[in-house]
């Protein structure tokens, strides 16, 4: 079992915190925009079968999660192997007993988890109105409209996070992300109508 301090060291020596953060935002954005697109599509198409809409959203969420998990794991494993080989060549020594070798095995898994879980969890958050409606919980808006609203909230949140990372104004980061979501919604409306 790897302790948290060890994990921090592994992330530090591979400088993977930045990569994981970038993956979280990029794939989280993918998840949120995909759910937004699906739900705007349901709205424009007057979708009214709750279970079909929920199944479509879950299917897309799981596919995004699996895509993020596998693609990041494959690419990061290859990158870390090359990084370790380069380092061994520079050090003129075998690094099998080092933290660098452990990092080359563990870090791709961590980064893949971030890349896979970000779109999955954000998508599941966005479709909570469908779960609630199915459970008989009364909502102030229809499930599709509520899901669209939550998608905007999630996208705003990711924008705020990016704004904070860049050291800029968090509100501006959130507004920029909302603009992208609004543009996506308008394009779907134009295409569908």
């Amino acid at each position: 079992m790897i302790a948290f301090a060890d994990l921090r060291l592994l992330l530090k020596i591979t400088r993977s915190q930045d990569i994981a953060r970038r993956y979280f935002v990029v794939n989280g954005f993918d998840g949120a925009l995909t759910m937004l697109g699906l739900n705007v599509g349901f709205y424009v198409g007057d979708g009214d079968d709750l279970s079909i809409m929920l199944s479509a959203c879950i299917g897309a969420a799981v596919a995004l999660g699996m895509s993020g998990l596998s693609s990041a794991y494959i690419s990061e494993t290859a990158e870390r192997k090359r990084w370790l080989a380069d380092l061994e060549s520079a050090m003129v020594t075998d690094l099998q007993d080092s933290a660098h070798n452990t990092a080359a095995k563990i870090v791709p898994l961590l980064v893949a988890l971030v890349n896979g879980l970000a779109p999955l969890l954000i998508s599941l958050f966005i479709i909570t109105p469908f779960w609630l409606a199915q459970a008989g919980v009364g909502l102030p808006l229809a499930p599709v409209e509520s899901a669209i609203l939550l998608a905007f909230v999630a996208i705003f949140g990711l924008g705020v996070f990016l704004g904070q990372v860049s050291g800029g104004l968090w509100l501006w980061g959130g507004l920029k992300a909302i603009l992208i979501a609004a543009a996506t919604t308008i394009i779907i409306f134009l295409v569908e109508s």
Partner: protein
Amino acid sequence: MAYIKRLVLDILKPHHPDALEFAKALAELGADYRVTLTTVEMDEQTQTLRVVVQGQDLALDGIQEVITTMGASLHSIDEVEATGAGDAETDAYR
């Protein structure tokens, strides 16, 4: 019984973990360990260090293990200061 009080080591290490992490990992080997690290040479991916470790009774095996774990390699032991029995408590840090 003799005690090793001071070691001067020539070490090659990757840039990461950095010098602070590296020195801290060595110092954590013992409550009385004192580590002085000097960067002698800097290359694209590696750096050569002169590391002075001082303490009441240094354990080279433990030091060697930390060096390996941190991805570094011990090139040479350049200086050793040892004292005989009965002198373990004195003159540790000069």
